[in-house]
């Protein structure tokens, strides 16, 4: 059951670029597993290694215990949904779907039955005799998926399958993909740079950067408990706050002095000692921003700041609050609405408060990003002394 698909110390170099750097991970049978990362992080190379289009320089790939590293793509029980669909333009929708079975020389009746079933699955019986250039992007997408599914692959590889679709269609196809995965029960290996897609579809996500996997976990894990500053900033928005542990006031908690911000309380799951440097990720939605002072609570961090910028978006408002020498980005969900509530305005002095448990301690320091040659996203650029320049 476990480790249905296994990558063992796989490396691949293209010229001077180390596309995949000693990567090991495993995927369970029937799992929807995503490789998430920015372009050039090596996720597509991993997929191509899996499909057999590339050979790894080192390491091996195991499928159900069998080493498939040397098996050519046409003999692997693995099929791919390509980013631009790669439908054969000279064949009709029906012929495209039938391609895999034709190549396998299956009997005619079997092919016809299977193709009809697939057409029914994607509700495209009426388009069966059209060419790919006569159908829409979403329809092409569906044809590409069932064309890959008809051979009953053991693993279905999907290379950014929704990237070429517009937003509305992407959301619909997202549901459809989920549905198809539930129906066919095949293991899905899904490559994307879109954290939203990965979060909503996957059982587990591997976040990649620079040819390496930074973290593997269920969506909530990589969002709420990011291991590294890269994962924290790539998935969702965050505030990086770094400082030094000054005291351990109660079990499992530590007090951290943050230059230009003040003393804050933090959940100490990494067992840091006094004097250790720590780097925290504070998600914007974890903050409360109010005009009234909150009630005293030992586990609450309460700071005073000035609203620098406000973006109102209907269901939520984003506040950027200047606290000490730092700017903190916050996100306020509108759960209720009172006509007579006094709204927060620019330049207002506000209380910013959050639960000490909501901050998450990272394994690395944000400034280390630059030492590793990684440019963090623009929202979280840090200067050399660790202060945020802008959010």
């Amino acid at each position, binding site marked *: 059951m476990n480790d249905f698909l296994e990558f063992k110390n796989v490396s691949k170099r293209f010229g001077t670029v180390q596309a995949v750097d000693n990567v090991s991970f495993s995927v369970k049978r029937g799992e929807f597993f995503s490789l998430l990362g920015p372009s050039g992080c090596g996720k597509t190379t991993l997929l191509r290694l899996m*499909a057999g289009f590339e050979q790894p320089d080192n390491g091996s790939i195991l499928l159900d215990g069998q080493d498939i590293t040397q098996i050519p*793509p*046409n003999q692997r029980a693995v*099929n791919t949904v*390509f980013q631009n669909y790669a*439908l*054969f333009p000279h064949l009709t929708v029906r012929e495209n779907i039938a391609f895999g079975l034709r190549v396998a020389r299956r009997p005619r009746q079997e092919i016809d039955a299977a193709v009809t079933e697939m057409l029914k699955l994607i509700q495209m019986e009426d388009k069966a005799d059209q060419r790919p250039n006569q159908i829409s992007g979403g329809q092409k997408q569906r044809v590409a998926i069932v064309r*890959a599914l008809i051979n009953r692959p053991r693993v279905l590889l999907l290379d950014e399958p929704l990237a070429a679709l517009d937003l509305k269609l992407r959301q619909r196809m997202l549901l459809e993909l989920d549905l198809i995965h539930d129906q066919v029960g095949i293991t899905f290996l899904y490559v994307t740079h879109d954290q939203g897609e990965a979060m909503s579809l996957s059982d587990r996500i591997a976040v990649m950067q620079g040819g390496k996997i930074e973290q593997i976990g269920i969506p909530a894990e990589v969002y709420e408990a990011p291991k590294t500053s890269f994962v924290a900033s790539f998935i969702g928005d965050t505030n990086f706050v770094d400082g030094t542990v000054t005291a351990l006031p109660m079990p499992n908690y530590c007090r951290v002095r943050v230059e230009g911000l003040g003393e804050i309380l933090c959940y100490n799951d990494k067992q840091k000692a006094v004097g250790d440097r720590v780097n925290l990720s504070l998600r914007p939605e974890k903050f409360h921003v109010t005009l009234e002072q909150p009630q005293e609570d030992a586990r609450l961090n309460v700071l005073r700041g000035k609203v620098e910028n406000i973006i109102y978006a209907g269901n939520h408002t984003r506040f950027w609050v200047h606290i000490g020498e730092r700017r903190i980005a916050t996100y306020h969900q509108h759960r209720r609405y009172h006509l007579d509530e006094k709204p927060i305005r620019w330049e207002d002095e506000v209380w910013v408060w959050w639960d000490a448990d909501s901050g998450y301690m990272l394994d690395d320091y944000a400034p280390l990003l630059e030492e590793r040659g990684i440019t963090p996203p623009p929202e979280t650029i840090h200067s050399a002394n660790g202060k945020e320049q802008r959010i």
Partner: protein
Amino acid sequence: MSRRWREISVSLPSLLWLTLLFLIPTVLVLAMAFKPSDGYGGMGPGWTLETIRSLRNPSYPAIIGRTLGLSLLTTLLCVVLAVPMGYYMARTQRIWRQTLVLLTVVPFWICFVVRVFAWKHLLHPDGFIRHGLLALGLIAPDTMLLYTTGTVMLVLVYSHLPFAILPIFAAAEKFDFQLMEAAMDLGATRWRAFTHVFLPGIARGIGTAVLVVLIPALGSYVIPDMVGGTESEMIGNKIAQRTFGDRNLPHACALAALLTVAVLGPLMVMVFGKGRSGTAEKSVGGVV
């Protein structure tokens, strides 16, 4: 109104061009086949079927047959050689691709007649190739490399190959090679992906190549004249002979008309005959 006018004004030059330089000459050639010859290179008064009747001379069907056979074989060989070449050129690195395109075009910088003449030297009975092959015992002492139908064939392929490579390369360059990966991913061998995905993908380029090789090959007369023997005469040689030697223009026109009919007939069947006319039609349109 203005749009229609614009369409007419845009297509008018090419229409005039085709009418003046293609349609009218073709009609003239066909018409002149029915005029009597005056024996001095001109035409006599009135109309006659005499010239058409003289085409029944059994030597003509043989020559027409040889012309068609040589041209079709040339076309086939050119396409068979050009497809892997085009495939390779499209897949190779950019710098190599440019070099190969240049190398394909370079022969055009040398006069066509000079290049054919070079073959005459190369294959000369006292040339180094024949002597070399003789020394190696690969040919019999009485084997001639020059003035045979095979020589004509060789030089025809040589001189028409670039015309086949260029359109096939152009089509292959636009071909999405991910489609071949998709085919292999679905279980096809590399060869099957090549024949069932790549070849249909460049069908238009192949169609163009067939036409741009076949049509000039059918009309060739310099090559059989220079490197061919009496047994490898093509219809072009006969037309030239009737025009310049016999000064019998109607006869030359009748032969030309015969060639046109022999080519256009099957082509019409191909283009308008069956349902799979799409690509062929487009290629014809692209060339004419």
